[in-house]
């Protein structure tokens, strides 16, 4: 059986998952971005990626500013020394991605779906050559851009 990937449904669920996870983990509001702003080149961004194995074969990537990651770290690690917090921004982004990916797939496919994820990883060099973007959502998280991109969607059957 070959299902049709429903992009609008996926985009909505992805937005909801991002909002929910950031609210629950970091007490931050994430709203759909209505500004035409694109990521500024002079703002350092962190990118993380996770490969999804089943029931879709695809990749989910999130991108946001290091500044936002640092704010999240400040909230999560409020009683931790600054020198230790400095190293945690990247890991925090990875964990956010892991949770967002899991919630997105659970919500999209529903109860009992066989979902398998790879481990999340940081992305230092963007390579879009073989990627086909299926869904991209842009969120405003406390005036920082938070972008999630689902690409190269294939069904396993």
């Amino acid at each position, binding site marked *: 059986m070959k299902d049709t990937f429903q992009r609008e449904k996926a985009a909505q669920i992805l937005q909801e998952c991002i909002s929910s996870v950031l609210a629950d*983990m970091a007490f931050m509001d994430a709203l759909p971005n209505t500004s035409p702003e694109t990521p500024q080149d002079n703002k350092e961004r962190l990118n993380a990626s996770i490969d999804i194995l089943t029931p879709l074969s695809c990749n989910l990537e999130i991108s946001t500013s290091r500044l936002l990651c640092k704010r999240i770290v400040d909230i999560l*690690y409020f009683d931790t020394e600054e020198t230790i917090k400095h190293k945690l921004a990247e890991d925090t982004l990875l964990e956010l991605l*892991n*949770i967002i990916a899991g*919630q997105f797939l*659970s919500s999209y496919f529903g109860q*009992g*779906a066989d979902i398998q*994820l790879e*481990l999340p990883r940081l992305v230092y060099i963007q390579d879009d050559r073989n990627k086909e973007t299926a869904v991209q959502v842009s969120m405003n998280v406390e005036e920082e851009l938070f972008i999630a991109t689902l690409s190269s969607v294939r069904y396993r059957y």
Partner: protein
Amino acid sequence: MSAYKHILIVDDSPTSRMIIERCVQMCGLEPQHFYHAENGIDALGILSESTEIDLIITDINMPKMDGQTFVRLIKNRDETRTIPVIITSSIADSSFEPEMSKLGVLAVVKKPVSPEKLVGPLGVEQ
């Protein structure tokens, strides 16, 4: 008074381990010691050195040895089979849950972990 004094947290994310530790404390538990492991292999090493661990909280998706394999191993060993286990996962109602339930896992808690989600499995009065 907390029943769990020595808790092993297994997760490759230091952020996640910190969140879990904090949530356990916010549930009112006062363990004497938290042990941290990044994966199932490290966790087995800690268990081989310490006989005091009385609760394990483990993630599923980890490098080197995932949580499912780790739980299967410890539930098949005499020295560790009775240690209560709570699993954390970013995936709801996953296909591994029936097997984990048969192995006697206390609960599967969906991430992000919160004190409210741990209160029941930890047996803490609200």
